[in-house]
């Protein structure tokens, strides 16, 4: 579903991602774990065209990320950002924020779809006319998820989806994501610094350090402590 081959991303002279390859199967939930500066978020941003200076190859659902126009790629892959306080337009109501991607794609039946999406993420229809500053962090992240689902993508890229939230809210959002994945047959690529979140959510994971891939593990391997890198051990001890 997602194929990343020998991707290198540069920010000026600095190398943010160095020759990373990974493969995510359809319906799978794949985790990228590492600390700040490991390049894990950069991979996500590169896959959706938010970075410019990169080499290698990324295909999503058979579409080449470099050559496919964003408008088309948008119907296959969407992203949920880390900070729900910064990812919703402060002047747009919830309804408008969720409808915007569909307006861009000139879809039909937008109004009904907004109601349906709100239902899907567990907020009632009265939220349509609320502004982001009237919502809690968890509610905002739900809205951001609804917006990402508006175009019915098959792949969802989640960049630290719960790290700005309280633990009790984190549990609700993680549950919601699990339910959505099952219900809508989604493929997840999740980035987190929290190994516990990744172990809970992902079938397989890749550990990253200093812009390189350290190793790829299945959830079972992680739980059986069958890893080779001392760095993975360090992360595990800190979790």
């Amino acid at each position: 579903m997602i194929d990343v081959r020998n991707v290198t991303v540069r920010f000026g002279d600095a190398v943010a991602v160095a020759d990373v390859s990974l493969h995510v199967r359809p319906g799978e939930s794949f985790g990228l774990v590492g600390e700040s500066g490991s390049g894990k978020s950069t991979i996500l941003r590169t896959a959706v065209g938010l970075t410019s200076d990169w080499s290698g190859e990324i295909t999503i659902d058979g579409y080449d990320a470099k050559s496919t126009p964003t408008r088309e790629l948008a119907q296959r892959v969407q992203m949920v950002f880390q900070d729900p306080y910064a990812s919703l337009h402060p002047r747009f109501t919830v309804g408008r924020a969720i409808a915007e991607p569909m307006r861009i794609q000139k879809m039909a039946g937008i109004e009904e779809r907004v109601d349906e999406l709100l239902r899907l993420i567990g907020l009632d229809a009265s939220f349509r006319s609320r502004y982001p500053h009237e919502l809690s962090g968890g509610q905002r992240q739900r809205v951001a998820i609804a917006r990402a689902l508006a175009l019915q993508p098959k792949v969802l890229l989640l960049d630290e989806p719960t790290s700005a939230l309280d633990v009790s809210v984190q549990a609700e959002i993680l549950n919601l994501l699990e339910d959505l994945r099952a219900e809508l047959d989604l493929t997840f690529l999740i980035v987190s610094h929290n190994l516990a979140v990744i172990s809970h959510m992902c079938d397989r994971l890749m550990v990253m350090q200093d812009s390189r891939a350290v190793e790829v593990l299945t959830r079972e391997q992680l739980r059986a402590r069958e890893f080779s890198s001392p760095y993975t051990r360090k992360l595990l001890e800190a979790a």
Partner: protein
Amino acid sequence: MTEVAAAPTSMRQARAREWRSFVRRFSRKPLGVMGLVIVLALVFCAIFAPMLATHDPYAISLPERLAAPSATYWLGADELGRDIYSRIIYGSRLTLFIVVLVVVTSAPIGLLIGVIAGNYGGMIDRVFMRVTDVFLAVPKLLLALAFVAALGPGIVNAALAITLTAWPPYARLARAETLLIRNTDYVNAVRLAGASEWRIMMLHIVPMCTSSVIVRMTFDMAGIILTAAGLGFIGLGAQPPLPEWGAMISTGRKFIFDQWWVATAPGFAIFIVSLAFNLLGDALRDLLDPHLRQRR
């Protein structure tokens, strides 16, 4: 914040609620309210000038030349015996005309240039900003003077000349805001949905710039009034017999020691109105400026 206020049922109600909260916060700023009242009074004077004026502002009456303030001539009469009070009332129309004309032309031009430069970056940014720098490098009044000299004196030309000098700060401001906004995740999110750059700029970035532009506009109005009066003073703005405040001061200058009221009254009008715009701007900045707003 887990508890949420009673749910609004429509977009209109949501907007109305935001507006009411804004009005409530504004009403807690006495100086801002004072500024607003004076500005509204200016608008009122301009609209109802014929009813408020006691004399025809153009009626010459040489026997009353330079009359001191009295029951008939509230603020005295000028060198042609015209009632100064009535002229100031009518002059508010000219002041307001220039201010509005300048603001509605310069702010959108500057906003557009700044947003485009900030959003695209690279060559476009460099060209646009260097042009802006050139305009900023020349003193405002001097530049306006040069334009009026080229276009010919007159009130519309004066307004146009001021416009040409007034847009660059808006471009600077809008560019700085755009640089911050274009990389936020809420803009990235619509970019990922396949939005065109034009849509991103007009629908997502411009609304975020408007509050700082409005604040800047309010402050600018004070400056515009002064520049317009300055042009009028040196005879390049409104032409006689128009009761433009700057031009009135200019004629009053000759009698400043003996008949002080001729120059003082319009000077006072200019002072009050530009002070009012500054007070209003201060209050609006406190309420609207995104950087100050976070600290509340």
